[in-house]
C-alpha cells in the first residue's frame, strides 16, 4: 500500500507503525514519530496500524538555536 514518509511516497506492506519503521530502516534509531499530524509515542507504535495514504513524520535530533 502507498503511504507518505517525511513527504516521500513509499510502498509498504500493511502492518503496525513499529513494523513499518523497521521495514524502512529506522530500527534502533533515536527518532520520534507522528502520523497524520498527531504524535505517536514510541510505546504506542506496535499497536498503531498504518493505513493506506497515511502521512508519517519521522524526526531525529538536529542542531538548533
Amino acid at each position, binding site marked *: 500500500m502507498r503511504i507518505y514518509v517525511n513527504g516521500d511516497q513509499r510502498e509498504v506492506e500493511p502492518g503496525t507503525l513499529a513494523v513499518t519503521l523497521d521495514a524502512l530502516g529506522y530500527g534502533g534509531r533515536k527518532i520520534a514519530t507522528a502520523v497524520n499530524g498527531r504524535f505517536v509515542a514510541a510505546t504506542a507504535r506496535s499497536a498503531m496500524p498504518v493505513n493506506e495514504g497515511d502521512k508519517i513524520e519521522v524526526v531525529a535530533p538536529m542542531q*538548533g*538555536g
Partner: protein
Amino acid sequence: MAFYGVDLKSRLLLGTARYPSPKILADAIQSSGAEVVTVSLRRESGPERSGQSFWALVRSMGVRVLPNTAGCHSVKEAVTTAHMARELFDTPWIKLEVIRDDDTLQPDVFGLVEAARILTEEGFEVFPYTTEDLSVADRLVEAGSRVLMPWGAPIGSARGLNNVYGLKALRAHFPDIPLVVDAGLGVPSHAAAAMELGYDAVLLNTAVAEAGDPVAMAKAFALAIEAGHMAFKAQPMEPRDMAVPSTPTIGRAALGD
C-alpha cells in the same frame, strides 16, 4: 540561577546550529562553559543518520538540552513538536517558538500564549521565545511559564538590544521570573548590556557560530555575560548630564595669576 528548580552556574545558553563543523561546535560549547544547549528536531530520511551522530556528540558533552519548536507556525505544530521533543530528549523543557512573520521571525504571541497554556497543562516546563511586550509576558506567566525569553532583536540579525526601555520594564515588572534575552545579539557588549539590565541569562547561537573563530567568540561572550552580571550586582551609578570632577578640588594648589 535556577530554571524550573534546576540550578545552573553558567548564564550563557548556547545554540548548536550553523557551526562550521561538529568539532568546532563541541569546542565552542566547552569554551563557553554553557551547561544548557538548544537543539531541534528535523525529518530523518535516508541512510546517513545525521541526527544520530549529532545526538551522540551532544550526549558526549554532558550538557543539559533545551529542545525548541523552531519553524512552527501554528499552535498544533508547536504542541506536536513539543511532544516529539519530550520523548526524544527525555526532558519536560521546551523552548517554545510559534512564528508569525517570516521576515523578522517575530513570534505569533497569540499562538504562543495558547501553546504555552496547553503545554503547561500537559506537564511541560515552557521557555517561551517572545517579544519584550509586557502584556504578552503577563499572559505567558498566567499560562504557567516560569521563565521568559524576550528577543533582543530578530533572530540572527546581530542588532543587539532593539528596545532597552521595553526590556528594562519587563525586568522591573517580573523581579522573580528568570528572564533570558534570546536572539538578535551580535557581539559580547550586547550580552553585557543585557546582563547589566539585570537579566538572568543570555541565549546565543548565530553570533558565536558565524564568528570567524567561534571557539574564541564563545569564550568572549561568556566573559561579557559574567562581567555584565557582576556589574549589575555592583549597582552601577546613575548617569548625569554634567561633568563632575573625579579628582577632589579641595586642597588644589593656587597656581594662577
